[in-house]
């Protein structure tokens, strides 16, 4: 510790660890290359403290003492830093590649991918509007090496089941290497890099107002949440409060998105336990909510609703009453089937005790969303740092009825509670919107000059979504999206204590991770 205190980096690290010991939560770490015109990397720790997010910067030359031994939540973030910037966290427990695995160009030369922030505002990678498709190609395409991570067996009698990246069913690409003596799963490797899209660098150089379209597609199943978090950061920079009617519309769509996300989990659990009618019913409800969203805004995923400064102009026409009725009927039907589901023993038997996430482990890793709440980590951005329409509503973080369970059933119960809570908020928003005088509505404020650094965060369907942005003269220099999927997938290693291979689909469904948001 005395060695550490000598350097400025060490002092900054000590600051982070002290504050975390005092109760702050590590949201994540990200790096920025070429900041201040130097070649060094600035590593920023994002801490959630009380009712705000705090950013702590430190300059890192080539190596620095790893944060992970003291703060387990930093585990994956330091691997990403190592991949993206080549910085070396000394004493990191396992520095295997995560997002960049042995990147090389088409002639097999090893190449370091562009470091986020490097191109910054000077980037000119925006499309030449109207130009022929052929001229818009990327300068250098980089490929990961499939042999980059160890795939060998690690113990006597163990064999490896490579599961992915192309898996059965219609799912996102993700590779699990399951090492098993037959039934148990003593060790699991998660290889996410195959799907890397270069999201962070793609933001850079774009107009800040246009960036919302990219944010919506970082994790396509949580478009509204991502767009809202991104726009909150811009609004913070501009010092603008969005109009109350816009805040209501954002909440309406965010809660519908939450309902759909949770219904998807219920349906996947029904599928895994071969409950065919349950699967048909809950996928049917999901379709009904998607069609409702489509009727409300023209997109089944609520896209292009959230814009910087508010929301796109909404139509509040004579079908108001019809919509409220539709939501009410849907809610009743879902609750009816939910009640039957939660007494169906063939279903519950598969969930109880499966995929146990120890509350202590969940707390030290800072698990977010329903996964965390089911293991007694009561983190919910709507409650902790209320934003928009939630400011007046006092949402509380859901807790499972059987406290401290932490298994698949607890995660399901949290989600079912949240579906009900989300319907409350949807009905509230529809009612409030119905009473607004149509001719006086202001859907969005103009954002003035954008310059500086800011954060935005919302509670998405799968948990906390955070954006940290750096903008220079209206152009994006660095964008760091932190998804709940990224934060929670790290814990996927730790939930197979007593479970066997056939429990795998249940545990995976209960985590509801979107790999698009993990590997970016």
């Amino acid at each position, binding site marked *: 510790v005395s060695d550490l205190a000598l350097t400025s980096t060490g002092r900054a690290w000590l600051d982070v660890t002290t504050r975390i010991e005092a109760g702050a939560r590590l949201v994540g770490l990200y790096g920025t290359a070429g900041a201040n015109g130097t070649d060094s990397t600035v590593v920023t720790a994002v801490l959630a403290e009380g009712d705000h997010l705090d950013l702590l910067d430190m300059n890192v030359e080539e190596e620095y003492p790893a944060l992970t031994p003291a703060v387990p939540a930093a585990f994956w973030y330091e691997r990403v830093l190592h991949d993206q910037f080549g910085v070396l966290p000394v004493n990191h427990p396992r520095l295997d590649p995560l997002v960049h695995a042995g990147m090389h160009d088409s002639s097999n030369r090893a190449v370091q991918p562009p470091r986020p922030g490097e191109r910054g505002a000077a980037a000119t990678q925006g499309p030449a509007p109207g130009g022929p498709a052929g001229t818009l190609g990327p300068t250098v395409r980089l490929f990961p090496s499939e042999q980059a991570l160890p795939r060998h067996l690690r113990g006597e009698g163990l064999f490896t089941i490579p599961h992915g990246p192309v898996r059965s069913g219609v799912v996102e690409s993700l590779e699990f290497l399951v090492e098993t003596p037959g039934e148990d799963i003593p060790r699991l490797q998660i290889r996410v890099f195959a*799907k890397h*899209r270069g999201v962070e660098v793609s933001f850079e150089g774009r107009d800040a107002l246009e960036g919302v379209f990219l944010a919506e597609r970082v994790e396509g199943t949580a478009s509204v949440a991502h767009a809202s978090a991104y726009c909150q950061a811009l609004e913070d920079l501009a010092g603008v409060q969005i109009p109350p009617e816009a805040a209501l519309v954002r909440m309406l769509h965010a809660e519908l998105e939450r309902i759909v996300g949770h219904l998807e989990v219920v349906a996947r659990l029904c599928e895994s336990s071969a409950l065919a009618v349950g699967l048909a019913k809950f996928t*049917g409800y999901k379709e009904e909510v998607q069609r409702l969203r489509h009727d409300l805004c023209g997109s089944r995923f609520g896209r292009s609703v959230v814009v910087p400064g508010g929301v796109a102009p909404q139509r509040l026409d004579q079908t108001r009453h019809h919509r409220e009725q539709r939501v009410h009927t849907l809610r009743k039907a879902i609750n009816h089937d939910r009640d039957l589901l939660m007494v169906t023993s063939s279903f519950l038997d598969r969930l109880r005790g499966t995929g146990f996430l120890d509350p202590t482990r969940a707390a030290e890793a800072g698990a977010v969303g329903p996964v965390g709440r089911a293991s007694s980590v009561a983190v919910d951005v709507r409650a902790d740092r209320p934003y928009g329409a939630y400011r007046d509503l006092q949402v509380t973080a859901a807790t499972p009825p059987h406290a401290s369970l932490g298994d698949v059933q607890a995660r399901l119960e949290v989600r079912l509670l949240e579906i009900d809570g989300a319907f409350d908020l949807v009905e509230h928003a529809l009612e409030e919107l119905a009473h607004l005088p149509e001719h006086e509505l202001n859907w969005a404020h103009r954002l003035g000059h954008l310059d500086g650094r800011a954060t935005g965060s919302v509670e998405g369907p799968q948990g906390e979504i955070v954006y940290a942005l750096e903008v220079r003269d209206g152009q994006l220099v660095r964008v760091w999206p932190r998804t709940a999927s990224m934060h929670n997938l790290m814990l996927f290693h730790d939930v197979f204590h007593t479970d066997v291979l056939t429990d795998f689909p249940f545990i995976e469904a209960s985590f509801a991770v979107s790999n698009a948001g993990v590997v970016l």
Partner: protein
Amino acid sequence: MPWLSRGLNKGVVTTKWPRNEDRYQSESLSNLAQVRPGATGLHQPEAAAVCPTGAVADRVEGMAIEQSRCIGCGACVAAFPDLFEFATGSAQARLVDGNHEASEVEVAALRTAIATRTRALGRSVHLRHVDAGSDGSEEWEINALFNPYYDINRLGLFLTPSPRHADLLVVTGIGATGMLAPLARTGEGMPHPKLVIAVGTDACSGGLWAHSYAGSQGVTDAVPVNVWVPGSPPTPFAILYAILLALGRLPDAAEGSGGGRSTSMPPRPSRSSPQSTSGSTSGSASAALEVSRKEGPT
């Protein structure tokens, strides 16, 4: 037992499309922009600059929107409502030749070629999906095809976990460089005849990620694509339209036009019609399928 009555109580919600019209299929707002029919021939050079993917072009014959690059964000519709509008209906899939949209002459030839290839598949078509760097929403929309509202099993379309049993490869995503090799291996593992559908604007052109060092501007270079479905993401009906287009099983009235505008379509006696249940026909179809499977790689 209680689940049985729950299932029956709901009644039938499944669409009758393509046999009968479905208004959600034909009339609802699509998530692609188009030039207003009344605005053809007009020029507005500034309009090209508002498009985040460069889909809007100012051409000699007037403004144009390249649908394979449109993400339906509505930036052009909001800025120039006189020029652009959102299209309606789900008929947004296009036959492609290599990596460009086929011309009208080529379409006829392609259609014949595909019809010949898919004749043997009859009413038992198996789909294999590969995600090559999508944002996750396209997977939801493909999965939705199996919910009770679409239930594409009724059309003889099934999912298969193995490429060895697959006739149709459904690809989503920007062609992430890490997925190119697994995608190519999956394609090679499929028997002939096989068809490839690129689902989503990302898969057609790379969309907003077209300039990424880890993307490929769509999947057209990695696998031989037969049909494009733009949209970010395309709706389940748009994907179903694309599958039927690839299989040559769209009723004539639904093709090319706004998609199933006519109120009723007479059942056609050919094998391509979903109503065809003639024993001898399906028998010969499965025999032909056997032959074609044997020709494929083993």
